């Protein structure tokens, strides 16, 4: 008998949106509120941006608003380049957002208001995490599961894990594949997927391709 393999248990995260009741009509107001709202609100507008699934021109809600409603494209590009996963905490993300906005305001100090109805509304979320009832013990089972789980489950294991597990950890999938199945090359390929450049559905397809290639190679007796 070999060692018992710890299965990968798929979980899902559903977030219920709460309003803070605060909103900004121009960049100065946005800056002021970014410095004052709770960590949960910054977390929602930066980290949970990827739950939207389809809009990927920007990488967080602040950049999206700057580009689409303030029509300040350069600022939107700079805010989009903030990588929340390389920063150690929400506090650092907040500092980085403020630094970029302050720099922009020092060059363009008279921000104008957006059209009524296009204000930035600060929200936060309450998250409910639950197992989806699927456990996999090998890559073939994992391949079937990854094709059928909801997008919210991929978000939880691919994006949320980067915050949940702390510095240095990328995603739950590659961690399990490397440390439980000892398939480092497969894990490395999954880690190489750029989280900012894909929708959740596109990430699903990339992971499927990587794992399918490995399962096929196993069946053909070809080592990866």
């Amino acid at each position, binding site marked *: 008998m070999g060692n018992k393999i710890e299965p990968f248990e798929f979980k899902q995260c559903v977030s219920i949106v709460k309003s803070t009741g605060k909103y900004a009509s121009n960049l100065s107001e946005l800056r002021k509120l970014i410095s004052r709202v709770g960590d949960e609100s910054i977390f929602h507008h930066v980290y949970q941006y990827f739950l939207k699934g389809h809009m990927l021109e920007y990488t967080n809600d602040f950049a999206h608003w700057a580009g689409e409603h303030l029509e300040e494209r350069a600022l939107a590009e700079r805010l989009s380049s903030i990588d929340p996963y390389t920063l150690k905490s929400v506090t650092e993300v907040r500092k980085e957002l403020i630094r970029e906005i302050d720099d922009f305001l020092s060059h363009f100090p008279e921000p104008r208001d957006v059209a009524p109805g296009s204000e930035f*509304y600060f929200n936060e979320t309450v998250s409910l995490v639950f197992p989806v009832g699927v456990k996999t013990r090998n890559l073939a089972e994992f391949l079937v599961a990854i094709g059928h789980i909801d997008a919210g489950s991929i978000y939880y294991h691919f994006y949320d894990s980067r915050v949940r597990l702390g510095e240095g950890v990328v995603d739950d999938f590659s961690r399990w594949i490397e440390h439980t199945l000892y398939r480092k090359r497969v894990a490395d390929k999954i880690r190489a997927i750029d989280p900012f450049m894909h929708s959740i559905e596109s990430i699903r397809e990339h992971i499927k391709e990587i794992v399918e290639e490995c399962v096929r190679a196993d069946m053909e007796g070809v080592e990866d």
Partner: protein
Amino acid sequence: MIRQYSGIVPKGDLLLIQKLCEKLKGRSFIHVNSTREGGGVAEILQRMIPLLKDLGIDARWEVLEGDAAFFEITKKIHNALQGNREKFTKKMWEYYYEVNRKNKRNINLNADAVLIHDPQPAALIDFRRKSSRSGKKIWIWRCHIDVAHPVSGVWPNLKKYIVQYNSAIFSVSKFAKSLPIDEFIVTPSIDPLSDKNRELTDREINEVGEQFGIPRDKPIILQVSRFDRFKDPIGVINAYKIVKKYNDCRLILAGSPATDDPEGETILNEVRDYAGNDPDIHILLLPPDKHKEINALQRMSDVILQKSIKEGFGLTVSEAMWKEKPVIGGAVGGIPLQIVHGLTGFVVYSVEGAAFRIRQFLNNPDMAKRMGQEGREYVRNNFLITRQIRDYLSIWYCSMNRGRHVMEL
């Protein structure tokens, strides 16, 4: 009952509903609104209550009763909250409160969670038992309308009741107010299994076409909505007239009367006069229970509009998207949340914009088809009834565990 949704709605929503119902099993949940029929709220409650009961929740639905004078007042409140100028007297607010007080005698409000829909029954909170104020019983006010820019005076009269609730729910972030209570955002939803949204056979669709005398000889543009100024039916006719110069088509304006909307008939007459004798404009006033007929009208249409100038959410947009129809909507209320501009339809700001987008769809069937398909998937993930039930149960559960931002089930 919830099994009927398997394979249609996202799996995670079904799972979470069942897990939350295990936690809340046997507890009572009452919904109160002001009309049994007509409007999106009543339609959803008709489906949601039996579903919740089936999942072990002691769910009830009560309807606030009022006379014509009461509904005249609440219609004015509704209009004023949406930014229309209305005159109020102290007596009107007293009558509003009095009708709520009378209803308290007939409605059993003793429940673990009480969800009050819209302004009409909002004052019922004043009659909440003192024992339930400090206990674990949760009172939630659910606002379905656009209250972002109310005319001055109306909101403070309502706010004094709203702040007594444990929490409030708004359909869109921009409707939320600055309140000292928790405010959640829950978008409304459609039921994919209801008569209004289920699949129909070609025969069923053709029968409805014949019933209303609508020839299927040219493209059909449709707007389904109450005959209400905020839905801009005159603007829709104007857009149709512009399109007609370039593309032959028909226009259907279809709506139901609602018992809480005394203005409907006046607007309907105005629309009929404005349409004149154009044989290609079909104005249909349908009884509120003609869901299958609305479904068929949507399915026989080529382009579906919701050209509102004020809107709570505009669920007819999701209904149309669920049927893979290309949609065009006014940039108000919840419409831009449903229509991702250029992906699941087009958002417009004027009659001319609506006309231009109709022409685009009529002349680019491939684009219309692609956006229709994208629209259905978007609705599946965001605007189906199971997601709304999931959210209501989650808010109830979160309110019982206030202060926690992440909860493992």
